[in-house]
């Protein structure tokens, strides 16, 4: 009796649930499905994430693949690398954390399609729970397995909602496209940071244990698959919190010690200007990127990490088969 009632109740609930997503994704308000008005987790399908992951083809080999947060897709310009003969694809996404990187890496990258993996790391990469990035990626990446794993990492009903939205939107065109998106995953920003921008100094770095575990898994997975891995911290504005960065860099150096991964800390290596080279409190603008990328390539070369991506003259970059 109880079982029958329970099944009946769950059937009714499932019906209402499916109806909600069917209506919410099809009824539009000002051109966008009304479901997007109902909560933060219902991330719009489209934008640079959709463009990036639909442009990326795992069958093609790239000398360098970059993963990480918006620091990655706004800081590593494939055009600047191409000038040095390096083919780079940027797979960064907004608020990407170690958890997101781990699942993307697991689904997409191998020694065959990746010469060198750069993971752009900043404090938030290990301090945030990855919700922002998960919401965006679950709606926009074509890889089913990674999307499900990211959604399930939330460990609450939001996981079901994200996946239900993903599947309900299946086959629909993206709602919008990013104007800053150029190609190969990169977004170009040319604006300067405002002069009165405030930088908060907390002097603290509090990594989440789960994210640290995911970073360890990334290092282990790269070693297992034979993908050379470099963790890079790109420049930070001179007025930002130096103590916080020191703690973070120290932590990362400890983490990579004894592993095959390397950590390149370029946070304060260049003399940059808070306004001229940054778009806001942490992201480089194009002028900053143009200073940073050559310095990064020099640094990679100096550390002997440029080898896997060194193009042999006349080598065509293309499918690995």
């Amino acid at each position, binding site marked *: *009796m*109880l079982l029958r*009632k329970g099944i*009946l*109740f769950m059937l*009714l*609930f499932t019906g*209402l*649930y499916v109806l*909600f997503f069917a209506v919410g994704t099809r009824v539009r308000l000002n051109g966008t499905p009304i479901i997007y*008005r*109902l*909560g*933060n987790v219902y991330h719009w399908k489209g934008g640079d994430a959709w463009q990036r992951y639909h442009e990326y083809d795992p069958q093609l080999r790239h000398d360098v693949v970059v993963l990480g947060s918006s620091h990655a897709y706004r800081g590593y310009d494939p055009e600047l690398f191409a000038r040095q003969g390096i083919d780079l694809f940027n797979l960064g996404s907004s608020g990407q954390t170690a958890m997101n990187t781990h699942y993307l890496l697991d689904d997409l990258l191998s020694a065959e399609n990746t010469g060198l993996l750069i993971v752009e790391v900043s404090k938030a990469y290990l301090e945030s*729970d990855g*919700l922002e990035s998960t919401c965006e990626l679950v709606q926009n990446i074509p890889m089913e397995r990674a999307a499900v794993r990211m959604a399930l990492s*939330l*460990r*609450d*009903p*939001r996981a*079901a*909602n994200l996946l239900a939205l993903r599947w309900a939107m299946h086959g629909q065109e993206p709602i919008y496209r990013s104007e800053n998106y150029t190609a190969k995953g990169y977004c170009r920003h040319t604006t300067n940071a405002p002069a009165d921008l405030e930088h908060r100094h907390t002097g603290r770095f509090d990594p989440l244990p789960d994210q640290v575990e995911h970073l360890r898994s990334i290092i282990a997975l790269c070693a297992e698959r034979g993908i050379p891995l470099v963790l890079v911290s790109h420049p930070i504005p001179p007025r930002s919190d130096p103590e916080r960065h020191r703690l973070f860099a120290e932590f990362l150096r400890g983490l990579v010690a004894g592993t095959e991964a390397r950590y390149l800390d370029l946070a304060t290596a260049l003399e940059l200007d808070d306004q001229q080279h940054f778009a806001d409190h942490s992201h480089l603008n194009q002028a900053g990127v143009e200073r940073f990328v050559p310095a990064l390539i020099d640094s990679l070369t100096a550390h002997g990490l440029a080898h896997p991506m060194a193009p042999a003259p006349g080598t065509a970059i293309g499918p690995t088969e």
Partner: protein
Amino acid sequence: MLFNSLEFAIFFPLVVAIHFLLPHRLRWLLLLVASYWFYMAWKAEYAVLLLLSTAVDYTAANGIHKAKDQRGRKRWLWMSLVVNLGLLGFFKYFNFLNDTFRTLSGWGGIDYSIPDMDLLLPMGISFYTFQTMSYTIDVYRGHLQPERHLGRFALFVTFFPQLVAGPVVRAPDLLPQFIQRMGFDQQRVVEGLKRMLWGLFKKVVIADRCAPIVDEIFGDPAAHDGPLLVLGVLLFSIQIYCDFSGYSDIAIGSARVLGFRIMENFRAPQLAASIGEFWSRWHISMSAWFRDYIYIPLGGNRVNTERWYFNLVVVFFLSGIWHGAGWTFVIYGLLHGAYMVLALMTKRHWRRFNAWSGLVRIPRRHHAMLVLVTFLLVAFSRIFFRAESVQDAFVMLGSLWHFKLAWGGLPALFAAVKPWEIAITLVLAFSHLFLDHHLEAFVKGERRFGHRAYSYLFHGSLLLLLVLFGNYGEVAFIYFQF
């Protein structure tokens, strides 16, 4: 472990399943282990305090029972009170008192250098301390025989559904239920699950959606104008009710699934027509505790008028400080004491005014007015309850009356919470405020749906709202900090 966590969603069905599979004589052991597990999932070390509290009150109650004379009985009672209040005082009030002494010493030009301690307040300490104290006092008063079975007594102290935020259960209500044999009763399980669903809905959909808006407004009151501050105060009133009564619903529901009955802790406090009535509807178990163990021993209302007022103020002062170690809570308690005393002092005048103004001839509208005034008075007092400091509370009070429509803090609020999310939250929160007592009657089984299909639809919709509109991320219950 939080009720609104994945861990609990796994833990609870497992405990229920094993509970009903085990023979009756072993069930107390399972529940005791489960209760410690539940508590230790938060901070294992602090289980020592639970053990200590259990050992002290078990020993004290049996000591009182065996003592040959009044002096001996009193000695055991004092031992229990000193240990329980000592632990509570140390963990909850040490830094507050230390800060106060430091400030006073500074004013007097005295060098006071005892540093604050880095203490984490043990979750639920105020609840289980009061529960065990009531047991020992009841044994001392001769209202109760001490429990001989240490395991069952330990379970009474730690019973996981109500361990960390009440209701503060009395021993005569709960201990006999541990002995009673019970089987798996479908109807009871369904009742319990419905109650849990209702509690989760109130917590996750209403309270936790209000939380970011309230946090933004109370976090920087100087940045907001009158209308937004008023909104923040009203929303906080709804938030704290849904948060705390939601916890009680889950506690009562989960105990019900396991076969136990726990007292009700709320009875539509938003419908109270006076502050006195509010306290008979809000956190009933704690109000009853203060009445039975402080107010009545002080003489209650069977004393002269001045002493009666004094007793009321003392009880509300203690109730305020019970909530938290801070001057904001002291003011919150005293404000309620003042409300009560003022209401009593002016009772005669109000009666005359009502007759003169004709309000007595429109009793329903008059009652509605009283309900509104009571709601606003309580909401007002909660400015002190929620404010991060006394200074913040007074900043709010200063700006609350500026009803210019400047909406200065709106951009900051919209940066924290998207406008349409605020709109949805407002619709959910205020509809809940008005519909709560109607819907709750169905959940508690006091009213029945005309057809079973309506019940399915109602509970299905609750679950749907919970899944779709809940604010997840394991936001802790507000009363856990007390």
